[in-house]
């Protein structure tokens, strides 16, 4: 399924409705009722307009949602934090102590070749993540950058995506990175597309979804 909208909020609304209407129910390992669709592609053509609005919406609920500062810190902190099993920042900017995938690869590559199709960042490391008992592995697997019509577009593959709770944070984080790269190569940001292998919503959140006042 492909969903394409100008703004993050519209794309989010449409994808949540799509999962509720078309998803298949199952019970996960933690015994939570879940509704899921496979391979949901959501494209936001102008994410710069409202990528932080979703975080504000999530803060209206009873729970505590990660702050914008923490979401950004997780994406940009190069140092491994002892208190996380994994963190996006070190994998992006210091992949297992060996590679800054953004500053030493994506940015110089795109500066050198604006048509490159090789600007990919990988967050998954089979040597540590492909363990049967290891449940704490990144959901965001890879980010692909592509310049079209002088705008930097982003495509992300998310293996497991809680589209209600997780997607707003993911979009905010991805946009922060997209903006960082775009500024370095001196162009504007373009679209963001998320490909969610498992796009799901937990039943316990159905009521919350109904209650959202956009």
């Amino acid at each position, binding site marked *: 399924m492909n969903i394409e909208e100008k703004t993050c909020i519209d794309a989010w609304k449409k994808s949540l409705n799509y999962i509720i209407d078309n998803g298949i129910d199952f019970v996960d390992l933690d015994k939570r009722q879940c509704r899921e669709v496979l391979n949901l592609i959501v494209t936001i053509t102008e994410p710069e307009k409202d990528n932080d609005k979703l975080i504000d919406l999530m803060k209206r609920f009873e*729970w*505590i*949602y*990660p*702050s914008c*500062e*923490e*979401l950004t*810190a*997780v*994406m940009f902190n190069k*140092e491994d*934090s*002892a*208190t*996380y*099993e*994994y*963190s*996006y920042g070190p994998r992006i900017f210091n992949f297992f102590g060996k590679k800054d995938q953004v500053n030493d690869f994506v940015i110089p590559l795109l500066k050198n070749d604006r048509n490159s199709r090789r600007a990919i960042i990988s967050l998954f490391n089979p040597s540590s993540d492909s363990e049967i008992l290891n449940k*704490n592995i*990144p*959901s*965001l697997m890879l980010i692909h950058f592509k310049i079209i019509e002088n705008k930097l577009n982003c495509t992300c593959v998310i293996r497991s995506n*809680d589209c209600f*709770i*997780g997607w707003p*944070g*993911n979009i905010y*984080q991805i946009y922060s990175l997209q903006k960082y790269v775009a500024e370095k190569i001196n162009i504007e940001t373009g679209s963001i597309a998320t490909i969610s292998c498992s796009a799901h919503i937990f039943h316990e959140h159905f009521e919350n979804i109904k209650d959202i006042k956009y």
Partner: protein
Amino acid sequence: MRNTEEVILNLFKNNSTKELNTDFLIKEIYSKDYALIENLLESSEKTNLKESKRKKFQLHRKLLYYLKKLIEGNIIKVSKIMEKGEKYFILATGEGDTIIEKGYKKIIITKPAITSTYIEQYESKDIIKKYEEESWINRFNSILLECFKNDDIHQKYITLNECLININDTLALNDFENILNNTTDSSIKDFIDKIIKDTETTSNNISIIINIDKVNNNIYEFINYYAKLNPKNINIIFNVSNKDISKYAKIILQIFEKFSDSKIKINFKNKDLSSAPYFKGRAGIYNFNEEEWEIYSKKFKGKTIGLNCAQSQIAININKFFDKYHTDTEFRQAILNIAKTLLVANTIQRRKSNEYFRNINRLNSPNPSDFYKFSRNYIRFWNYDWHKDILENNNLFERIKSAKEIVDNFCYSEETIFKSCGIPIRLKIAFSSAFKGYDDKFMGERDYKKITINKTEDYYNDEVKTFLQTREKMFEIFDGGDRLRIFRKNDFTTTDILHELSILLSAYKLPFFTYDFSGLKGTVKLTNFM
């Protein structure tokens, strides 16, 4: 730095966590001009009123010029705009010290690493209290250091010493017999002397955990030396099981004789009921979740120097709470608000962990994250009279149980939310009782029933039996550990002691209990067995 900017910054410095609106800032900064405006406002003449409005507008514009500059410099930010367009401002800097320097002038603004929003209303009434507020985020409450068979005592001291600066309550030395059995008397004495000094300097506690069934003859000299010194901040926890009583009677009796002589409390953990360590701090008892301890023992033990046990803790004075609030809903809301505060505290701790706990991370290299795998936060309860509560049917047990369910669900949901955003956090909150040492001033007088044993037969009286059964229930609810204190008066014989221990270890589910001899007169000689 211009004078007005400096005045504004000083106002924010003195209100580092507050939102300040333009009216407040104008009154403080242009106090003389504002007084004139107020005079004009009091006048009934139209021209004066008009003039006052014009002057007020001018002051606003003047102030906004400086505020804008500070916003551009990322020093302050707009926190909210009210209906009539009135703006509120707050410091944009993070917690900790921010040095604002322009030219030769320097202003240091300290924004405390504390988020109290959720519990402010209770804190102001002295109902809820963070433990060691100054360091409740940049230090852990307690950690556990493992002692392995081939550990060198000098190296162990260096590690312990490095860890002490990162805690604000207690450090436990687990399986200490591994060191005791292989070390000479003088080295052990030297070690004890040094840690006594360290705990006095830092006001921290150290718990030495010894498995009675694994000690050798070195234990006797150690007990004598410890009893002679009677250190205020160091306590020993003996892990025993019911079957150890007869087998290791000689050691147990030596402990009773020496410790009761010096009026030192003897702490026992019942190994048959709990394999996870229990230890004591100023704030209360600490332990680990049994299932997680099993996982740690099988998969992680030896990979790190030990484990982080407690990250942050908050206590609630139950009697005071129900004096001011009355419903279960209010109680559950207060507990949920504590949980939220702990989550925020953990968030800051995580963000700053590489800065605050750099040396601990280095000591656990290459597996620093394993050290934090099983840590929890604590909510501690003070001044609840369980015994009276049960007699009067006040339902406090059920209240606490239902609050625990709410807290567990909250933790689970938050872990899921953060994980969904690529932030794989651990948030666990344990319930436990608080000790008076948590904070003398906040705690006030104790209000609970004590158990005093004058003779072994007392254990068979109905009142004592009911009391112990009540305490069993408390141990069930307090997943963060609890302690039963038995005040032992009058003389006792070797048979008495062994019999009493056997009752406590086999007839009740009391994982941790303490014999307190403060009411005992004279000295006790337990020689007939030895």
